[in-house]
């Protein structure tokens, strides 16, 4: 029993039931599932023929072909596996800012994607990037029953300190058992964001970067002289904000976002800009559907 408000509205969840995630790559899983796998296996979908070699299962021999060709072929079918979904959430202090809160938005997005994956009989594991070496992890849940532990885990995630995103990503890639679709929810406000994203490309994960920024970051409303303090441990900056400076900030922001987008495209990653002012429901059901990311 939890007294907190649920991350996602039940009505939204019912709408999510009817959707499924579209994955770009075909990936292998451990257990049988509903996704096409690169492996051959047992399904109704024909994949290939191959010569019989000793030791093969004779149940797979295509006897009709043998009758015509007098050679023994094996008939191979496409295997259908489950997918291993990886949800990485940046819980650094900078995510705990903005109106609406970026971290909460990230949790909602993770919950929506996780729920989508669970309804498709995929495996979902969640990991949070935190200060401590031992980052909180949800090892992997499967099936709709897994939604309850998934949501409660996400709700328990607490923001903290300045996290080294690069270190976290490297460690996660090295320790993950099965590659699969990977969702990174972060604001990427880190000078080393490039190294962090690069680390994710070491293994064949299907990476989607959800770049979450608050409206106050996209369109800052500052007028006057300010000393801007970093919520993490970055250095303070003194600015005399005027229309000119704000314009320059906006230009820099666009540059930076373009830079990230180019980097992602160059490394076969999906890049989605997320403004926390847009509700999650609208984003998933509207924007992502239009982009063909969910079906």
């Amino acid at each position: 029993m939890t007294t907190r408000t649920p991350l996602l509205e039940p009505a939204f969840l019912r709408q999510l039931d009817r959707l499924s995630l579209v994955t770009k790559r075909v990936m292998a899983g451990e257990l049988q599932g509903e996704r096409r796998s690169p492996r051959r296996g047992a399904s109704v979908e024909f994949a290939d023929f191959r010569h019989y070699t000793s030791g093969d299962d004779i149940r797979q021999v295509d006897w009709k072909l043998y009758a015509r060709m007098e050679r023994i072929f094996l008939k191979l079918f496409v295997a259908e596996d489950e997918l291993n979904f990886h949800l990485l959430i940046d819980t650094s202090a900078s995510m705990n800012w903005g109106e609406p809160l970026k971290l909460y938005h990230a949790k909602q997005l993770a919950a929506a994607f996780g729920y989508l994956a669970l309804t498709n009989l995929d495996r979902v594991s969640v990991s949070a990037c935190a200060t401590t070496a031992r980052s909180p992890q949800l090892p992997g849940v499967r099936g709709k029953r897994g939604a309850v532990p998934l949501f409660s885990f996400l709700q328990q995630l607490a923001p903290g300190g300045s996290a080294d995103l690069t270190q976290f990503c490297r460690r996660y890639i090295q320790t993950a058992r099965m590659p699969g679709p990977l969702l990174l929810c972060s604001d990427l406000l880190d000078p080393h964001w490039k190294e962090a994203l690069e680390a994710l490309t070491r293994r064949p994960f299907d990476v989607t970067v959800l770049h979450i920024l608050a409206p106050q970051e996209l369109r800052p409303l500052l007028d006057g002289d300010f000393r801007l303090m970093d919520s993490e441990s970055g250095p303070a900056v003194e600015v005399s904000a005027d229309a000119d400076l704000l314009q320059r900030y906006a230009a820099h922001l666009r540059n930076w976002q373009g830079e990230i987008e180019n980097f992602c495209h160059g490394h076969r990653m999906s890049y989605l800009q997320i403004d926390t002012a847009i509700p999650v429901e609208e984003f998933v059901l509207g924007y992502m559907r239009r982009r063909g990311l969910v079906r």
Partner: protein
Amino acid sequence: MSILSPLALLGAAVIGPLIIAIYLLKLRREERTISSTFLWRRVVRDVEANTPWQRLRRNLLLLLQLLLMLLLVVALARPFMTTQGISSGNLIMVIDRSASMGATDETPDRLGAAKQRALQLIDQLPDGGRATIIAIGGLMQVPVAATSDRRELRQAIEQIQLTTSGSSDLTQALTLASALAARESESEVAIISDGNVSLPSDLRLPARVSYFPVGRSGENVAISAISLQPEVSSQNLFVQVTNYGAQPVSRRLDLYLDGAVFNAYTLNLEPGREQSIIAEVPAQVQIAEAHLAGSDILPTDDRAFAVTTLGEAATVRLLSPGNRFLEVGLGLLPGIRLLVAPATTNSFTETVAQVPVTILDGVVPEPLPPGNLFFINPPRSTDYFSVTGEIEFPSVRPATGEEPLLRNVSMSDVSILKAVRIVPGSWAQIVVDSDGGPLLIAGERAGRRLAVMTFDLHNSDLPLQIAFPLLLSNLMNFLAPGVGNEAAQLRPGEPLSVQVDSQISEVRVTRPDGSRWSSRAEQLQGDQVIYAETEALGIYTVEEFGDGELLARRHYAANLFAPEESRLLPKDDLRIAQSSGLQSTLVREREGRQEFWRWVAMVALIVLVAEWLVYQRHGLHYLWSRWRSRRSVGSS
């Protein structure tokens, strides 16, 4: 340039550091926590490349505020520039508007220049200073008194008009000015005139008097006299032309008779000399006009009119036990028909129109005859005066000033044996006074003109002197207006009085410009109709109607015969006694101070607006970009 209140500059020493201190305090920035300074660091790195300009712009506000403060402090210090003019807070301005101010040697004329000068003086009036404007020339006028409303003052100055009536007499104006000036400690009297004014001799003004002369030239030729005198079968036209300037002048004099050209004379006039023309003209000529061809700076006195007096005679009744002096004197006067009646007459049947004047020499009949009366040595009291006794050997004291009855008459060496002592009513004006009582009084009461001479002519040597016929002529002009040689001449502004009786139902006056005036019924109730609007020069035609029928027509000529107005050369200085002991009224330099703090304050206001715009530049920039984006949306 100097300043009136230098203490205000101390304000700069106090407020200046205050503004700078506030700026230094303001540079402590407000702290604000944001998610990450990662992006801002990159932005600021760019901005710092052009920091000097940025700093300058930030200081622009400071500079503007310091400038604003300096301007305000300077304005408070009341800077001024010394100018020629006036400096005191109570200004009494005397503006001459007499005929000589119409001279065109200034543009547009002297009065225009005087108004310009007056407006300048109003501008120099210190803040809160009050001004009084007195217009002299003719009837003295005070359009505004002791007001600090500059708009009203300017309006009053603009509304001053030239007048042709009367001369410019400063006596009355300066008497008023000294009364006004005595109320305030720091007063100044400014006289704006060409200086051809009559000055008071015994007045000491409790104020400083400044004289602002107007006019440059004195070259003027004027017709100084004109008359049509009846002869036996013709008339004599007499015209006198005077050159008031300092240069010999040659002018042509054109004479017109009843509007037709009669003759032209070329006159060579030496400076300061006059030349006379006498011409015989037909008896039927009604109006003669003399006109000086060409132009000089005062055109007003280049035209003159004369009206015939032929065939007009007023009947004067003399009730006397026998007075040879009077009978001879009156018989000599032109235009007078004498009707001698015995002293015992006491019933009078003739109307006023038939016998307008009655002379009562030593008798007072009961009832008094109608019309104007001249009492000589009245034996008893009447409604108009009371006789209280006798005076022996009174010493003669003629009235001072411009008394028309005493024109050309010298009474000083007249000796009188005895006279009756009378107490005049309030109507009477004393013309000749003595230590015991008045000797000659004159005045008007209930529409009739009265004169009283309190001594018998046989008891004085007056009839033996040359003054007697002149005095008699003046008296007859006064008692029987509209008759005699001088009668047809009007001085501008002098009221025109027409004797009426019950026969006359309407009096109509045609002015020189052709416009008409008709008497109203109630004006005909008395014995005479007064028409006062005789400012314009030229011929006035008076017509009397009885039941729609023209009964009589008379012409009057209004001419500007005023040597003091025609003499145009402006005076450099006026000698007026002032309480400071000064006599001269020349304006010396240093006098006025022209404050200009208003201009400084105006610049400060502009700086204030600029400062506000600079402060709000973000908002303006935002509005500008919004407008541009809206326009681009609208055009796409």
